[in-house]
């Protein structure tokens, strides 16, 4: 657990003018990042989120207040020892350009005195674990893409198996597709490793996606709200937080609601290679095509099939929701489907049935009514 107690960082007034006590980057921050959880610090530029992060490994010294890790005041520890016990990942990865990927990853274990062979074999494991080809181990950072460099950055931070990780906008400098991959893999990795993570981002969507709890900071380093992502979207404490969490939050909040058990409609299907007559025999303008294992492949417009169903005539715009997914995915499947019938599959990807947007909305309304009439304790379990 990382605990901030009344932490303030005030920078000396270096402008030379007599404006008093200088600028405040972080103002009387009290916060707890629980063990094994991801705590995200989010806020606009100048809200002191990076300053807050860097005070943990003492790259910045607080003006007042204490920061403790598992009950030990960080100010009382040897600074090099403190830092070697904390994984640190930054925006542009900050890899050492003159060292191979393998030698980058072994940095902290080597500083801690682990012998070269042990450090290297552990590094190879980590390189694979973060989704890199082991052949990359001998390359230099300049030979990797931005996303690959960032994976090496994560592997390097994990190399000495630190209980605590600090991550400063680690996925901000890569393109959106790679960012989403990295985020998903990061969440998977974290579910195995259970590190205590303090994660800084300016992107509220990233905060809501990754955080077990999210701290919204306002300019001047004041904590505006600390809550679970679902609570943050559903119930912002003031206009600043409401404005910061942004539009579509009603829709986005559905991400945190598990899909209810709806009675799904059986969907008649065709296989690849089905004749035009087979397709038209079903009698609906759009027909769902499934693969050999029963996995939905895409919708076919009956009128567009000339001789038989081929992959090229498949409409791929519709998303597929999972029975164990979120209400958001369920609603999105219905909204994105050209037929208006959202495709639902089980965990193995096999088609279970379809659902209409109106049915999902009805489920959302029913859920809202249930929450409104429940006691606070029940409300907590409903989340």
């Amino acid at each position, binding site marked *: 657990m990382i605990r901030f107690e009344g932490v303030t960082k005030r920078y000396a007034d270096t402008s030379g003018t007599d404006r008093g006590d200088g600028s405040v980057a972080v103002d009387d921050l009290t916060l707890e990042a629980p063990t094994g959880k991801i705590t995200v610090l989010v806020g606009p530029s100048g809200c002191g989120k990076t300053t807050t992060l860097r005070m943990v490994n003492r790259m910045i010294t607080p003006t007042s207040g204490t920061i403790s890790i598992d009950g030990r005041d960080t100010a009382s520890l040897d600074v*090099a*020892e403190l830092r070697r016990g904390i994984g640190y990942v*930054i*925006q542009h*990865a*900050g890899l050492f*350009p*003159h060292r191979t990927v393998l030698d980058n990853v072994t940095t902290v274990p080597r500083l801690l005195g682990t012998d070269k062979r042990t450090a290297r074999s552990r590094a190879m494991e980590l390189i694979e674990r973060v989704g890199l080809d082991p052949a990359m181990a001998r390359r230099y950072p300049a030979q990797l893409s931005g996303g690959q460099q960032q994976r090496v950055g994560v592997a*390097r931070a994990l190399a000495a198996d630190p209980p605590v990780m600090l991550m400063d906008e680690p996925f901000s400098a890569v393109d959106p597709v790679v960012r989403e991959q990295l985020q998903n893999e990061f969440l998977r990795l974290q579910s195995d490793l259970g590190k205590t993570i303090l994660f800084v981002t300016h992107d509220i969507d990233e905060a809501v996606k990754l955080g077990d709890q999210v701290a919204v900071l306002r300019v001047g380093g004041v904590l505006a709200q600390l809550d679970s992502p679902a609570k943050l979207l559903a119930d912002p404490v003031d206009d600043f937080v409401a404005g910061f969490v942004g539009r579509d939050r009603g829709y986005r909040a559905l991400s945190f609601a598990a899909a209810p058990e709806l009675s799904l409609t059986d969907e008649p299907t065709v296989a690849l290679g089905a004749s035009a007559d087979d397709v038209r025999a079903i009698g609906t303008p759009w027909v769902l095509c499934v693969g050999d294992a029963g996995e939905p492949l895409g919708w076919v417009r009956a009128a567009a099939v000339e001789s038989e169903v081929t992959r090229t005539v498949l409409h791929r715009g519709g998303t597929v929701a999972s029975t164990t997914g979120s209400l958001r995915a369920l609603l999105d499947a219905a909204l994105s489907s050209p037929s208006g019938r959202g495709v639902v599959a089980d965990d193995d990807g096999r088609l279970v049935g379809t659902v209409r947007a109106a049915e999902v909305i009805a489920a959302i309304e029913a859920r809202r009514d249930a929450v409104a009439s429940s006691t606070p304790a029940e409300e907590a379990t409903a989340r």
Partner: protein
Amino acid sequence: MTWALDHIGDIMSRAGQHAWLAGLPLVLGLVIALPLGWLAARRPRMRAVLLTTTGLLYTIPSLALFILLPPLLGTKILDPVNVIVAMTVYTVALLTRTVADGLLSVDGSTQQAAIAMGYGSFARFRAVDLPLAVPVIAAGLRVAAVSNVSIVSVASLIGISQLGYFLTDGYARSFPTEVWVGIVACLLLALVFDLVIQVVSRVLTPWTRTVAA
């Protein structure tokens, strides 16, 4: 050409002395410039003072330095040590700025990562900043090497044996061939220095020759 071949023994021995007088100061100068450049890179105020001072050293005329040093060092005027010391001063003058520039050229996020991983300041200098500054420092060394080879030849005016002898002697005897031999020999020596520095720099920086992904 025949003159050069007839005197090849003499040319080679003077070239050897020239290489010693220009080369040893390069090494000594680098050793002194490293800590100075490190200080200059770390402390902005020290930087202003150090770079101005060392820059000024370079403006002292070499002949003046060759003559001024013996009383300061307690050496005889013909002692090659005077030349070694003078050339070291010039090398330090050129390299302090280069070393500081090289260290300051290291990417901010790389330095930040090194600090966050728990490198102490000396360990960081040795393991991260210095290796990354090698290309810049090597470029400065190449300039210093050429400059040293050229300045050392002036020492023939105070009678120190090296390739400059052919210039003064050829001039005194109105014998252009000998002057040309001196010039060409200096040039070749400078090229050899340049080549050695480039090779060493390449060996130390395998990462700079990788193809970007």
